[in-house]
């Protein structure tokens, strides 16, 4: 883990690459239980934008099959949302890929 943090890390090169990135804002739209939050949770997970302790918190909870992560719990940040299994209010989440930074608004079903 500490191996990256050496003086050989090309910070200027990394920052230059970051400066080139676009910022894309987007939002989900869909009916109740279409899987909007689950999809976003999955995107966050796959782009490694969630940390291990956050995944540990939701493991074994939620409404998916046993042993499977309920990805919607990553974005449903309010207790009432997790209890009822629905998104009540908009959440903004952030992730980035090699080319772009994203701000995504996770919306309630409508």
């Amino acid at each position, binding site marked *: 883990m500490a*191996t*990256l943090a*050496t003086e050989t890390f090309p910070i200027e090169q990394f920052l230059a690459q970051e*400066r080139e990135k676009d910022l894309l804002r987007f939002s989900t739209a869909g009916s109740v239980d279409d899987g909007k939050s689950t999809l976003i949770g999955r995107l966050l997970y796959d782009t490694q934008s969630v940390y291990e*302790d956050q995944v540990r918190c939701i493991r074994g909870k939620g409404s998916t099959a046993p042993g499977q992560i309920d990805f919607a719990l990553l974005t449903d940040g*309010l207790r009432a949302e997790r209890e009822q299994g629905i998104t*009540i*209010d908009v*959440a903004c989440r952030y992730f980035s890929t090699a080319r772009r930074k994203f701000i995504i608004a996770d919306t309630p079903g409508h």
Partner: protein
Amino acid sequence: MNPAIYNPSSTVSRSTPTMTFGAARTPAGCRLSHLQLLEAQSIHILREVASEFERPVMLYSIGKDSSVMLRLAQKAFYPGPIPFPLLHIDTGFKFREMLTFRDEVARSIGAELLVWRNEPAIRAGTNPIKLDTKRCCGLLKTQALLDGLRHYSFDAAFGGARRDEEKSRAKERIYSFRDSTGQWDPKNQRPELWNLYNGRIHPGETIRVFPLSNWTEMDVWQYIHEENIPVVDLYFAKERPMYVRGDVLLPIEQEFMALPGEKPQMVKCRLRSLGCSPCTGAIRSNAETIPDIIAELISFRSSERANRVIDHDQEGSMEIKKREGYF
């Protein structure tokens, strides 16, 4: 000169609030980087609030996010002074280095610094061991904050909270309304469309404003690097005496935190997030400079608030604290 390459009138100046969807849509020949876009949005928010509210204040917690927010406030009103005071809620458990840094910063930029403490609770010896962390935070932070805001009749308080810090913070608006008792109702939030902010409040109500809402931890460190913003030395790795308990490194600032017979050990470590010393763990690290920290950030697998005991004292911990008036 080709106006597509250089045209002063079309150049997006730092004073123009830019809210665009999709890639930054800017005049020809000018492209804002991700950080410049975030900066422009934050400055827009700071100016909106300063002009709309009677008595705004900036909650200054001395951490990295506060340091960035303070720089943005300087830029937003430059060359004028920052048109509102800074308020620090001192729990009496802040690291000594933090307090020295706080006073130095306020003096060097000529800002008005107010400090508020819940003196009765501090005199009564409130600490997280005697009470639990929930009640300790409730008295020394939340109550102190609410009392401090009421004492000075502030109607808008800037905070450096970011949505990516914690999942209930991801639910926050930029203008976060609080009722007359300072409480947040997450199920009753106003719509916030593009860069339009509705600042109307009833007498007795206040708002918290989060200009850094859309910043991530990485953005904050990159900005600190690019802008050369001073931060507290505790963020950088150094040999420090710590109580070592498995993976947990506990600072030795407060003697009551020691277990019977426990001796501190010297460990090369740093703090990733700054809070009260009894409830903030350090991490083992070799990151001595900001580039080191940025490199380390890429390799992290746990979140920045994992070291904050107060976030884990109950299910939905941050949400409950926020509802009660925590920032």
